[in-house]
């Protein structure tokens, strides 16, 4: 078996700003399914005494957790990978039918310099799938776009009661090194 290692050779400073930006948007609960592109934010959320980090076994759990958090008066966000979007389809009807505010940060696979062909089928339809279920997608391709797009997605979600996803492009995240 080849050694898997994640190489974040491109500018990764944006990764260190995600949790702070979410907290500035008053997000207190972060549900996540791990992804290398979210690793910094997930670690920071788990270590932050003011943030409740919830590790999910599948992405659809996170959607329902975000809805429940809103019922209880707290803001939540979901960190996930593009391959998980397919797991979410029916659960997104909860968001749509009740017009829950919803904010997901989705790291992309299967769209740029992808080594694993199994990632491409879902990566190619990630935004389309979200769109079909009424989720508005905001995209960041460059480090300098991330915070602006996140702030826009967050404002639309929590002030506008919309379902929003920030798509973090694979080029932004960088190549995954599979074999040393």
């Amino acid at each position, binding site marked *: 078996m080849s050694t898997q290692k994640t190489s974040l050779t491109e500018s990764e400073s944006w990764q260190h700003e995600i949790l702070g930006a979410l907290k500035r948007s008053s997000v*207190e*609960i972060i*549900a996540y399914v791990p992804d290398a592109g979210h690793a910094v934010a997930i670690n920071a959320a788990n270590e932050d005494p003011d943030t*409740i980090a*919830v*590790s*999910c*076994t*599948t992405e*659809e*759990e*996170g*959607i*329902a*957790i*975000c*809805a*429940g*958090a*809103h*019922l*209880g*008066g*707290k803001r*939540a966000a979901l960190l996930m990978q593009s391959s998980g979007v397919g797991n979410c389809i*029916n*659960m997104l*009807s*909860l968001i749509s*039918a*009740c*017009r*829950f505010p919803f904010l997901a940060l989705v790291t992309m696979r299967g769209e740029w310099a992808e080594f694993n062909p199994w990632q491409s089928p879902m990566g190619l339809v990630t935004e389309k799938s979200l769109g079909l279920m009424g989720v508005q997608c905001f995209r960041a391709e460059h480090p300098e776009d991330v915070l602006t797009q996140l702030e826009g997605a967050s404002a639309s979600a929590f*002030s*506008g*009661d919309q379902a929003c996803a920030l798509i973090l492009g694979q080029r932004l995240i960088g190549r995954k090194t599979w074999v040393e």
Partner: protein
Amino acid sequence: MSRLKRRDAVTRLLEMRKDALVITGLGTPGYDVMAAGDHDSNFYLWGAMGGAAMVGLGLALSQPERPVLVFTGDGEQLMGMGGLATIGVAKPDNLVIIVLNNEYYGETGMQRSHAGRGVDLVAVAAACGLENSRRITDYVGIKELCVNMHQRAGAIYAEIMIDAHEPRRVLPPRDGVFVKNRFRRSLGFASI
């Protein structure tokens, strides 16, 4: 194994709800809760199967001082089985998952569920770290749960063995936006 009447069991629990917040899964558990009386602090799912316990988790984390009761069926909880692991790790001490287990998918024509074919959800919940997992087969167990659900002494998984009789449907409101806003208003939150 003795089995309880679902409406009796749910009504007795809700008579003792005090300040508890209530989530229901889709199908008959929602009708049972509605039959016991609509309430501003009830949120009824009409779809999103598998999600009720996770809505309950999000609510329990955001309202840690209030007991959160999730009423669902064995079929829905089987679809959301991974969520028991998520609850076991998150360890909300105020979350009570109440599974009405008739061992059938009632809403779709009484097909036998996995819970009626040897799958033990109480054991699954316990293995996931919900130390307060129990199977309830009599009203002594219901009485105990009425007390335990207010103690906030750790997440509870309570499976109530009910007979397969399907009582008359009492439909909860299915306008999700209305129910959401009503629920939030009961906690003092305004809509946008």
